[in-house]
């Protein structure tokens, strides 16, 4: 599954007995390069390689494989472990209406994801209401309304542009019409835009969401750690969604985000159509990142 180059380099490592520090250092140098080329953050890659090195050195070399292949095995297992061994489900506890808040940078795929998630929840027997809380982007409300009608889901929008009121009114509507999940579509924003980040904190405080999902573009590069940690600082989000994974981006941002926030990756968006939403499989992503 590894890229040709990485596979060959690692195959060349010879040795008997135990994995030496030299075996491991040589092998990991190539692996570090592969991680960086896959967009894993520099510091995250450094830390990760160090922990793999520690685990690998001194291990008895297994009979059937080369030291290089063994390093890969340790690496792969560590990666899967870090990405999240367990499948992480959506947690909607307490009494309805439940609230799921969807946040992230501009253009990451939130509005599309909100619709997909609504459809999935409806297909599982719930009664979702999509809420258009993006009052900034031109035609954002139209976009959500159109999406909603495509999958036959109700969408709540208002004439006015007061975000907190929109959320409050949506909740009233949900109670009145027995919708049991509210999915809040928020405007894309920069993590360094204090005013906009405060708006999200206010929404969180008012709506007390069961889940706050950070939607990240799967092709994000080194900057993934910055946005993720800022959003975590303001909102302590509960899960991550990676989008546009139907492309050929390696997805190293996932490792970076997971590493700095510790939050589980809950979904992978794999296309523009409303049923291209998958649960997250850590070993599939591990293979993809390693190339």
């Amino acid at each position: 599954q590894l890229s040709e180059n990485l596979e060959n380099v690692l195959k060349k490592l010879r040795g008997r007995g135990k994995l030496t520090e030299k075996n491991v250092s040589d092998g990991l140098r190539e692996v570090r390069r592969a991680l960086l080329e896959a967009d894993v953050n520099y510091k995250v890659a450094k830390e990760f390689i160090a922990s793999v090195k520690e685990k690998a050195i001194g291990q008895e070399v297994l009979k059937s494989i080369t030291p290089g292949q063994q390093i890969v095995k340790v690496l792969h297992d560590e990666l899967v472990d870090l990405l999240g061994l367990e499948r992480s489900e959506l947690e909607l506890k307490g009494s309805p209406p439940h609230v799921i808040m969807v946040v992230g940078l501009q253009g990451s795929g939130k509005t599309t994801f909100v619709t997909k998630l609504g459809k999935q929840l409806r297909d599982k027997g719930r009664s979702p209401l999509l809420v258009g809380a993006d009052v900034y982007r031109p035609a954002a409300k139209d976009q959500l309304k159109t999406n909603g009608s495509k999958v036959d889901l109700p969408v709540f929008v208002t004439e006015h542009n007061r975000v907190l009121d929109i959320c409050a009114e949506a909740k009233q509507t949900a109670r009145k019409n027995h919708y049991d999940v509210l999915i809040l579509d928020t405007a894309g924003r920069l993590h360094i835009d204090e005013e906009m980040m405060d708006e999200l904190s206010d929404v969180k405080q008012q709506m007390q969401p069961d889940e706050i999902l950070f939607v990240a573009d799967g092709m994000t590069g080194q900057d993934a750690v910055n946005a993720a940690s800022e959003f975590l600082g303001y909102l302590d989000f509960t899960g991550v969604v990676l989008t546009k994974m139907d492309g050929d981006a390696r997805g190293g941002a996932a490792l970076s985000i997971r590493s700095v926030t510790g939050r589980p990756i809950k979904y992978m968006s794999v296309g523009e159509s409303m049923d291209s939403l998958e649960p997250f499989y850590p070993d599939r992503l591990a293979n993809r990142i390693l190339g």
Partner: protein
Amino acid sequence: FSGRTKLDDELLEDLEEILIESDLGVDATMQLLDDLRDRASEIGEVDIGALQEVLQNEIKQLLSNGSHAVQPESQDGPQVIMVVGVNGSGKTTSIGKLAHQFKSKGKSVLIAAADTFRAAAMEQLENWADRANVDIIVNRKAKDPASVAYDAAAAAISRDVDVLIVDTAGRLHTQGNLMDELQKIHRVLGKQIENAPHEVLLVLDATTGQNAIMQARHFQKVVEIDGIILAKLDGTAKGGVVVAINRELDMPVKYIGVGEGIDDLQLFDPEQFAEALFY
């Protein structure tokens, strides 16, 4: 003592970290640091400030390969600009900004809503056309973007506009049929107006990592890309991947997007960009 250090491993590692974290990528970073190592051995002892300056200059040179503005006056007839890129990169917003810029320079501008696919794409562009105070060709019933491009080109000629800007749907470079569609739009424009599109601009999201190189390569294969609009540079991402793209494909950055407002489009400045990598 003057507090100078030799070009040692620790110093190189610090520089490596800065460049990689700016999304320059491993190859471009290695190349630049190798050149630096050769240079430094001639210079002798150096300090990190001097090294940074050498790197900045090197990067600035790499990025100074193209004229950075799109010139409407070079055409006799409508200048046609086609805007392409992956989903959510900032195409539609950048077109609104561009239209406003040309308009405020006294040019007559027409926008074509050739994204016939995505929900509310036309409404979004209509809003921008309204804000920029320019006309827009839109067809709610159209399923084929090439037909909108066709109508827009015809309108551009009959109304004798200076600039026609064509918006296209976001698409991943890995979607063969959608890349074919882009080629078709390109062809249709060329059939209507000689040499159209005169400029094809690829919009890249500054937060994108090494995949931007793949995007540039693949889009370049289907339509000749004249330049890049690097959007969302007002965030914390540095967009260093354009250095790698330039080195490999000789594709210049023409504009940068620095916000969501209509005025938030600037001409690319290689010197400023190179300096900002080191903040």
